[in-house]
């Protein structure tokens, strides 16, 4: 019987398999950042162990770093200590580090692909749940805890039970102005935040094939938001073209060998999945969240739901709590919700295409009075490229703030936070209570909706801008 994409990649990485025990899985690439690694390195020191494969390990600084004054010492002492600890550990254990100020610094999930380190058929882990991003290349990529970070550092392997397989097939074509972010938010609203638990999900179908690499990364990034172990997309010509000529991509004869192998990484026609979901892309519209988990979303054209709309008792209570926290009245059209801060960035939507799309929409417009628009490139390289293309000028001319690279307001570990009660439209991935700052209220949106919202000051799509004087 045939095998699925994830089964093929899994099988290629089994070091040891014994009945009744988890598989011992080899890890091709271990990404490190400052928040979840300090105790892992400390553990190595205490047991007198070294990093087995520094040449399969790479570190950068992202969660804590400021996006203003990044050339000065970090003001917050806790953040500074974590960053300095990473630098010390990288030096001591011989790990390649791209620190703040380096042209390759940035959000770890933006850095891996742009260096060409993320390739099809790999196993990739990081002490961060959004590691699922790298699955867009046909890799098995998932987040791990600090003990597991130490385990990978010491052994380059992980003990893992083999997950079940799921296919999400998206037929048809996405309508104009509808993005990958709208698609994944729509999917999560249908499955709920736990719908993917225990599965490696393969996204497939015509609409997925038509997506760019960066859009595919947006889809796979949010796999964790519906509970999946990982998300994957089979590699194809789009994937190969993206990787080719990246700094760490295979070169010469090795490129040909690699591509030949990558082409075999597709689900066999006679393979079966443990579960299948089918979506029609044509039905997807601009989508935004109203609640406090990524599954609580509605089309932008809809209204804030009422708790009575939910039959399940738990969902009803969750909706009541979310509406109270979000300060929303049931029945209010989403388009009338006023936004204080628009955040464009994060490992979900902080890449070149996201910035280009938003710049294109906001060009010739101005950020609405009473609204702040924060643009945070996903990496220093994205920032430099955007500046070369003049995008920063478009944002600045429109009244937006142009910042340095990092995780920033996605999780507010650096100074970029919402004030209590402040409301954001955010291209990030989590709208949990307090995620972007204590008492902050988050609406997850696409880059298109973010840019249009910045102009109108209420949740909007680019189509709404015809009503605004350019």
């Amino acid at each position, binding site marked *: 019987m045939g095998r699925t994409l994830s089964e093929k990649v899994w099988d290629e990485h089994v*070091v*040891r398999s014994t009945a009744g025990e988890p598989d*011992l899985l*080899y890890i*091709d*690439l271990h990404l490190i950042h400052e928040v979840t690694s*300090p*105790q892992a390195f*400390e*553990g190595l020191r*205490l*047991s007198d*162990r070294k990093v*087995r494969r*520094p*040449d*399969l*390990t*790479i570190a950068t600084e992202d969660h804590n770093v400021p996006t203003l004054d990044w050339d000065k010492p970090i003001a917050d002492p*806790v953040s500074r*200590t*974590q960053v300095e*600890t990473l630098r010390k550990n990288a030096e001591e254990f011989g790990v*390649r580090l791209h620190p703040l100020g380096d042209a390759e610094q940035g959000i770890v999930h933006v850095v891996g692909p742009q260096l*060409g*380190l993320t*390739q099809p058929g*790999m196993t990739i882990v990081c002490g961060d749940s959004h590691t699922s991003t790298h699955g867009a290349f046909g890799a098995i990529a998932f987040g791990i*805890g*600090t*003990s597991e970070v*130490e*385990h990978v550092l*010491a*052994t*380059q*392997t992980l*003990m893992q039970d083999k997950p079940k397989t799921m296919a999400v097939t998206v037929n048809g074509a996405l309508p104009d102005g509808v993005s990958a972010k709208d698609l994944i938010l729509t999917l999560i609203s249908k499955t709920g935040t736990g719908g993917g638990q225990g599965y490696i999900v393969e996204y497939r179908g015509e609409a997925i094939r038509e997506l760019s690499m960066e859009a595919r990364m947006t889809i796979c990034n949010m796999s964790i938001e519906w509970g999946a172990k990982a998300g994957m997309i089979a590699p194809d010509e789009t994937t190969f073209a993206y990787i080719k000529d990246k700094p*760490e*991509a*295979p070169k010469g004869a*090795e*490129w040909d*060998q*690699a591509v030949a*192998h990558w082409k075999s990484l597709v689900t066999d026609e006679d393979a079966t999945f443990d579960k299948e979901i089918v979506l029609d892309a044509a039905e997807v519209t601009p989508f935004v969240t109203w609640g406090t988990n990524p599954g609580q979303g509605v089309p932008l054209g809809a209204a804030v739901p009422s708790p009575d709309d939910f039959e399940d008792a738990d969902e009803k209570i969750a909706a009541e709590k979310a509406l109270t926290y979000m300060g929303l009245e049931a029945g209010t059209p989403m388009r009338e919700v006023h936004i204080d801060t628009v955040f464009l960035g994060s490992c979900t939507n902080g890449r070149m295409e996201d910035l280009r799309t938003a710049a294109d929409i906001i060009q010739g417009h101005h950020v609405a009075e009473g609204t702040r628009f924060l643009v945070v490139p996903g990496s220093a390289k994205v920032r430099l490229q955007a500046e070369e293309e003049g995008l920063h000028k478009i944002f600045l001319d429109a009244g937006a703030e142009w910042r340095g690279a990092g995780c920033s307001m996605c999780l507010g570990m650096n100074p970029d936070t919402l004030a209590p009660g402040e409301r954001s439209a955010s291209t990030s991935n989590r709208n949990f209570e307090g995620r972007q700052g204590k008492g902050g209220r988050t609406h997850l949106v696409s880059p298109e909706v973010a840019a249009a919202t910045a102009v109108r000051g209420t949740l909007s799509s680019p189509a709404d801008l015809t009503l605004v004087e350019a």
Partner: protein
Amino acid sequence: MDKFTTHTGAGVPLRRSNVDTDQIIPAVYLKRVTRTGFEDGLFAAWRNDPTFVLNNEAYAGASVLVAGPDFGTGSSREHAVWALMDYGFRVVISSRFGDIFRGNSGKAGLLAAKVDEKVVQKLWDHLDDNPGAQITVDLESRTVRAGEGPDAIEDSFDIDDYTRWRLLEGLDDIGITLSHEDDIAAYETTRPSFKPVTQHA
């Protein structure tokens, strides 16, 4: 990780049930970058109370914690186990443990010994009557012993075979994996050369 065969040490009675990991170590102590030094966070809120049992000098230097049912429930924080061990505990005895806490204990080398509820009660009474009394926990025979003569306490405790084996051998997860180092090295020779590396000669 040190091998654990048998341990004898002073016991301390913690007469509380549902001790969740937020109580074992509050979140404010999780910002550290070290793996050690969490002893000051252990039961931090309760230790402000001078009558709390760990503040009683009669139990100073204790290494066996005897707690009520549902010890270590709640948050998965590995720091809870680290804090107990940094403080000096090698064994926690209870009639029920939180699943994640019990798993984390096995990883770090802390013995979570599950006994019948009436054994906990007997040990509590024994420790109250004889502050500083020793408790012996024998992992090979899976028995817990305290006191002498007709009132001596001796009973069995439960621990799963896999965790017991790892503790007896002194193997943490990494140690176990490294026992398969030949398999890892053999696998590495089969990896295609086109796979990327982060460092170049």
